[in-house]
């Protein structure tokens, strides 16, 4: 972290960047939040640790409009989102100084809580300096240690790899934390009967309180005006009054980001109700892979995405219909 702060200081002082986009400590030991730093002395609040899950690439949409360059800290998986935003002309590559920050898996405090860890006063082992094997919590009930991997975000178990897809320099080591099949959960749902599927999504989606956190955090949901906020469409103004509407919100959102979603997992990370929203997107990704060949959104900035392209090898619609 110190190396990162030093470099940020240098860049700010030399005037090469006008601001630094990173994280600062939150009010609890495990909830750092995205933050801008415009002066070198402000960097004393800068943090980077295992709890810095937030994908900062979406902030660059607004930062691209500001004067001067922004130094932005992107983890390997965040760089996919950034590339995708370049492809969609939503961020300006020239306005970003990308520091690829090391990542050895990010943490999900809810998982720790589920393991019975409560009254957390401080955490050690999340500094990303070592191998990130053990996480130790000082709690009001005493010290508790857990395996780091047991508290990792779901998305880190299906890690896309330790390589940054776009960067100006890299600071810190990364580790591929993949230890699960990416589509295992999707396959489980695919195996359900239509009735079971409906019941499953009904029960998950009925938890939705329409806080819009998933949409607001999603780098693919970058529309200037969301259809759900616009008076131009009948989808606006609808309160969460019936079960139909809440389903439609997530289904429409999944369609809107289909083929553009990099599977960054932010939607599920921020959902206060713990809905596994990423499953919708991952189903689309799985289908795209199967129908059109392996495709990872954000791997590059200029290829034609399968859903907005046509080749003679494309599957016939009837095959898609048959498969469901």
């Amino acid at each position, binding site marked *: 972290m110190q190396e990162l702060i030093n470099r940020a200081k240098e860049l700010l002082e030399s005037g090469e960047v006008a601001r630094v986009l990173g994280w600062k400590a939150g009010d609890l030991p495990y909830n750092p939040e995205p933050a801008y730093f415009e002066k070198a002395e402000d960097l004393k609040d800068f943090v980077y640790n295992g709890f810095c899950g937030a994908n900062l690439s979406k902030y660059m949409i607004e930062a691209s409009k500001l004067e001067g360059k922004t130094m932005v800290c992107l983890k390997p998986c965040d760089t996919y989102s950034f590339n995708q935003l370049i492809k*969609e*002309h939503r961020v300006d590559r020239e306005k970003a100084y990308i520091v690829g920050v090391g990542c050895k898996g990010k943490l999900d405090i809810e998982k720790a809580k589920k393991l019975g860890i409560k009254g957390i006063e401080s955490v050690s082992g999340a500094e990303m300096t070592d191998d990130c094997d053990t996480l130790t919590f000082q709690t009001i009930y005493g010290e508790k240690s857990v395996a780091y991997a047991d508290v990792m975000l779901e998305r880190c178990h299906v890690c896309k790899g330790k390589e940054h897809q776009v960067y100006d320099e890299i600071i810190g080591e990364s580790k591929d934390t993949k230890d699960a099949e990416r589509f295992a959960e999707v396959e489980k749902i695919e195996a359900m009967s239509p009735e079971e599927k409906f019941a499953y999504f009904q029960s998950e989606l009925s938890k939705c309180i329409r806080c819009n956190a998933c949409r607001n955090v999603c780098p693919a949901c970058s*529309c*200037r*005006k969301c259809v759900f906020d616009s008076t131009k469409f009948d989808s606006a103004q609808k309160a969460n009054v019936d079960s139909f509407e809440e389903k439609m919100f997530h289904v429409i959102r999944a369609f809107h980001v289909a083929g553009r979603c990099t599977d960054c997992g932010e939607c599920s990370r921020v959902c206060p109700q713990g809905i596994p929203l990423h499953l919708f997107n991952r189903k689309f990704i799985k289908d795209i892979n199967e129908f059109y060949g392996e495709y990872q959104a954000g791997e590059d900035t200029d290829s034609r995405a399968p859903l907005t392209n*046509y080749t003679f090898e494309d599957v016939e619609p009837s095959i898609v219909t048959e498969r469901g």
Partner: protein
Amino acid sequence: MQRIGVFVCHCGSNIAATVDVKKVVEMAAKEPGVVHAEDYQYMCSEAGQAKIAAAIKEKNLTGIVVCSCSPRMHENTFRGAAERAGLNPYMVEIANIREHCSWIHKDVEEATKKAVILARAAIAKVNLNTPLKPGESRVTKRALVIGGGIAGIQTALDIADAGYEVDIVEKTPSIGGRMSQLDKTFPTLDCSACILTPKMVEAAAHEKITIYTYSEVEKVSGFVGDFTVDIKKKARYVDANKCTGCGVCQEKCPSKKSLSEFNRGLNTRSAIYTPFAQAIPNVPVIDTEACIKMKTGKCGICSKVCQAGAVDYEQKDEIITEKYGAIVVATGFDTIKLDNYDEYAYNQSKDVITSLELERVMNAAGPTKGHLERLSDGKHPKEMVFIQCVGSRCADNRGKSYCSKICCMYTAKHAMLIRDKYPDVNVTVFYIDVRTPGKNFDEFYRRAVEDYGVNYIKGQVGKVIPQPDGKLLVQGVDLLDNKQILKEADMVVLATAIEPNPDVRKIATMLTASIDTNNFLTESHAKLRPVESPTAGVFLSGVCQGPKDIPETVAQAGAAAVKAIGLLAKDKLLTNPCTAKADELLCNGCSTCANVCPYGAISYEEKEVNDHGIRETRRIAVVNSALCQGCGACTVACPSGAMDLQGFSNRQIIAEVDAICR
């Protein structure tokens, strides 16, 4: 608020027999915005149109809904009537209560209910319609014909004779197509080459016709009147300007083992070759896969013997980009592969051949110099069996469901020619039905039976079994006699089903022209627009549209030419005003719409916008309305809903759906 008039047509009894039209009038009158509703026996008649005009004027209507037949039938009629009465033609909506309702339902109560709903949806839409004005686009006075068989040649000649430039693109090294492979033609038995060659020569010599052989269409963009086409001219490795067509290179070429495409693989050709003697152009091509020079770098004999110095091993493929006002597809057909028909032993015995192969066997320039002989041992056959409908009229999925149409006639032709030339050969034909409608066709078939003694057996063949002595045991059935037949034959000829040239799928996709499940190109209207593709500016000629014989093909080729000429004769075309438009304040500038646009109609501008007081420069999609065809692909791809189609806006369509679900 609109002032809407609703006009319900009886269409004689077509609608009125199944739909209670009075009830539709009564219900429509209650819809929001409707100030006038009436019914009439024939709305499309002059009197019906007069009623519409009168109501528009008297009631100051701002929009009308006509509940009648399909808009494909009479939308233009009613738009015209509205325009003459002073109403913008795009304020007219059609509720299709005939094809979508009365024709497909029997129950009057149910059908009436549905008709009311369809009317309601159209009224909901017209409430949101806005007047639109068509633009104009230019017409490039040049036509492209894809395919250089008899269909393509005839179309090109007719267009060229009318004074317009025509380009023919032919995939193979020569024009001529399937007809050039035929020996004789029914029902007159004149030599195919004798009647085709003059046409080929005429096309080649015509000052208005340019022929690109050994070439393929690579890319098509644009729209009716203004297509831009990339043509890939494959390298021949022979300079057409220098080559004299002397043929020495082909004689001296040491690589002579490639199967001759022209002779259907029944004999071989050299690596440098012209497909047949009358080929146009009479310029050989080098088959790079067979050429020793190309494969090993050593040889070069053709180059050494060429007096004209025409051989050029360095020649490259060339892309020619040309603009066209009209495109005619004439891609023709091939016979189906017989892999699904192992029972006929086609792949096991050289003496089981397709009819097209028999054409080559009978032809003086063919593999046997025109002598009828078994391909296995060169012996003269005594017993010949013809099997009809191999892959045609097929009930299972092995072959084609349709009748290939030409087989009954060419088999009668083959049978007659064989009996005439070799009276010692017995000819038996197994058939399901003999179908010979056409001028002088049935007489032709009768002649085969009555004058030439061809033995026709109604029934199918179950199996052809090659015997150790080289004979073929044909196991069939005689349905009229109700008995099994076992017959020894020396040769078996399969009347193999024809199918559209497989390349047509690629071409149809490039042209956005629709094809049916059998890969035949779809005509715009089965009866009234048989040579037009539903895609404006694209016309159909020959078997690519459906099975047909030479006279029919030539007739259709002429018809396609006339339609193309009708288009080329215009200086300007009115463009459809139902084009896409981006809402500047909603557009993200993400390029998704431009990626999906098949017409290249969308570009981007850095534009200053005022978004509720926020002034900023944004990347915004701009639609070129002259290029936009209103397909709507962008409107569904746009994630923010900024793209909308004028005349078919998202709100209008949702309003229709809401009206239906109400």
